[in-house]
């Protein structure tokens, strides 16, 4: 069964890589037909990826969220599903694929290199709060990834449409000209980060409630807890600067990107270091 799961993951990676390649080629060489195929191929990739997760659910007899293999795979799958749901309603989100697809491929790379062994879930994990906590961790990742993607595109746009770069660039032919306006990119980044912030808060609160019911303590300065809190504070700073002090531009956008990198570190990076209470979940 493990071989089948790995095989399905590789199949999904193949589709994601093909989709990303189509996207990059379609954008830089202006092949609109390829652009359409990019999202179709990635959507096809979601199928074997989803089947692999479904099989894991069936075999393990529990929701597949425990251990690096399951946790990261689910993170990527749900992140992509969120992206496709948003894409269906808002065309502008098409552009975010340039960051989302490569990030997903990289994380899936970690998945196929980690052990697919099914781990037993400890007693303290058999609770309703586990589902809430982990579901919102994935939603946090999904929305903040899209927010970070828009932030990167906004910085790219800003770099090529202001100052000397704008003067030497031929207008109306490049990738930058086809991007939505800087204002629109910035607003979409803010919107996704705002939603992501709410989900991050739910993740932290549900984790605290779970910890309290399992171990009698809301907070224990566990590394993942601490780094999630740091990311939350950075997002809080971003939102205060953006919303109340009305900051716009490079600095505040970079704060949003840094906050996402902190989220990635808390959800993924710490699994390779000392993750404290979360070590079994992320290892």
């Amino acid at each position, binding site marked *: 069964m493990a071989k089948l799961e790995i095989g399905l993951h590789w199949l999904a990676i193949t589709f994601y890589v093909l989709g990303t390649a189509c996207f990059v080629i379609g954008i830089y060489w202006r092949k609109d037909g390829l652009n359409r195929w990019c999202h179709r191929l990635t959507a096809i990739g979601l199928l074997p990826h989803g089947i692999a997760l479904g099989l894991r659910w069936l075999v393990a007899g529990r929701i597949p969220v425990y251990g690096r293999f399951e946790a990261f795979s689910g993170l990527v799958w749900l992140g992509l599903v969120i992206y496709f749901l948003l894409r269906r309603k808002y065309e502008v989100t098409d552009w975010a694929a340039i960051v989302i697809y490569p990030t997903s491929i990289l994380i899936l790379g970690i998945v196929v290199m980690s052990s697919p062994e099914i781990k037993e879930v400890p*007693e303290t994990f058999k609770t309703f709060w586990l589902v809430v906590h982990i579901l919102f961790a994935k939603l946090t990742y999904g929305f903040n990834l899209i927010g970070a993607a828009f932030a990167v595109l906004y910085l790219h746009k800003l770099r090529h449409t202001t100052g000397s770069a704008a003067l030497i660039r031929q207008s109306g032919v490049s990738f930058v000209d086809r991007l939505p306006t800087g204002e629109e990119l910035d607003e979409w980044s*803010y919107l996704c980060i705002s939603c992501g912030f709410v989900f991050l808060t*739910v993740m932290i*609160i549900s984790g605290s409630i779970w910890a309290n*019911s*399992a171990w009698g303590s*809301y907070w224990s*300065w566990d590394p993942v807890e601490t*780094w999630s809190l*740091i990311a939350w504070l950075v997002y809080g700073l971003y939102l205060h600067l953006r919303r109340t002090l009305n900051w716009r531009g490079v600095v505040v956008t970079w704060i949003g990107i840094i906050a996402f990198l902190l989220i990635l570190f808390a959800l993924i990076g710490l699994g390779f270091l000392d993750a404290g209470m979360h070590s079994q979940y992320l290892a």
Partner: protein
Amino acid sequence: MTKNNWLRRITRVIGSVKLASVLLAGLIFAAFYASIVSRSAFSSWWFITLVVMLAVNTYACTLRQWRGAVKRYKQIREGRVSGKPVTVDLPASDPADALATLAKLCRAKWYAVSLQNSRLVAHKNAIGVFGSALFHTALVALIFSAFCGVITGTWGRFGVSERFVFSEAADNYVVFEPSVFAPQDPRRFTLELEKLLVETDENGRVQRFASQVNAVDNKGLRKTQIIRAGSPLVIGGVTIYQHRYGYSPIFTLVLKRGDVIDFIVELETFGEPDEEQEYSGHLVVPGTSCPGYIRFYPGQPVKVAVTIEEPAEGTVTSGVLALGEWLEFSQGRLYFVDWRYWGSFTAVGDSWRNVTFTAFWVALGGLIAMYIINPRTIRATATSEGQVQITASSCRFSSLLQAEIRELARQLQSIGQVLT
């Protein structure tokens, strides 16, 4: 400058968002430093001072926020929002009729609509303006109650073996020892671990564990309950959580000089007990002061590996013992006579817990109101030039509002109310 002016100025500085941003940045660097360099910094005076300063700032901000929120709420109900407006002019064959249809479409999208004299005013999600104030109020309450909980509450961890008789408690109960974190003496209960229940699968891996306990509070009220993960026992104002479990091998030491000593060694597990772990620990052999080391193997048959060092003799004696077997060393014989499960519990006494818990949920509700419930208004007028002019505003996310207005215009076009 009058005294009132000074006060107002100080309150404005203390409650400013600029100060909040500086404090937030400071807290980020402090948490960053503490998590990398030293975790003890989280309980240092400067970290707590930063948190308290942020709480004071948030409190001062919140006072001002409520006033502003009430004002904005009234404005939205009158169809006025200070956000960036989205304007659309739609040519219509019968503008008044198109306006009536627009009113219907708005009602279908949960807008409160008023239509008078060829003028439509619609608003939605006005309650969202209270989100920020609600969130920040709950945040202050959360920090305050957590702080009070730490100061006035108790927290401690204790271990107890199955049916074990502690020498200092002749009545067969274990007395809770307060931890260093809780200066108060929380001896409000006694607890006996009657049985530790461990369920394993066919491979011998632990599926569940729970503790059947008898507890008595300080008024003599007796309670028998099974404590499992997520299902604690509440007694004498203290909540007792199952923390983890381990094994307690029981030994009888027969010394050559004639003494017979029974003793038990509690071996705590590290991490969750269903993993492959070491059940091991150091001991001092009673009556001899010899240091030793024990490793427990809970398989079938149960075994225990014992190492005893005798520095005076310069010898190290070790052996693996099954039940009933003994290890001979220079000062006597150590018999492995029995073993029991051992439970570790966390006891928490926090009278502020309900306030903290409620503040959690209120903060979450405020946050959802703040970012998900976006207050917005639509104003539309039917002009004599055969046009419907729509102006919409929202507190945030004008892109979403643009998409909504575009959708409304498309719907009006599709039912033939406005011209393409």
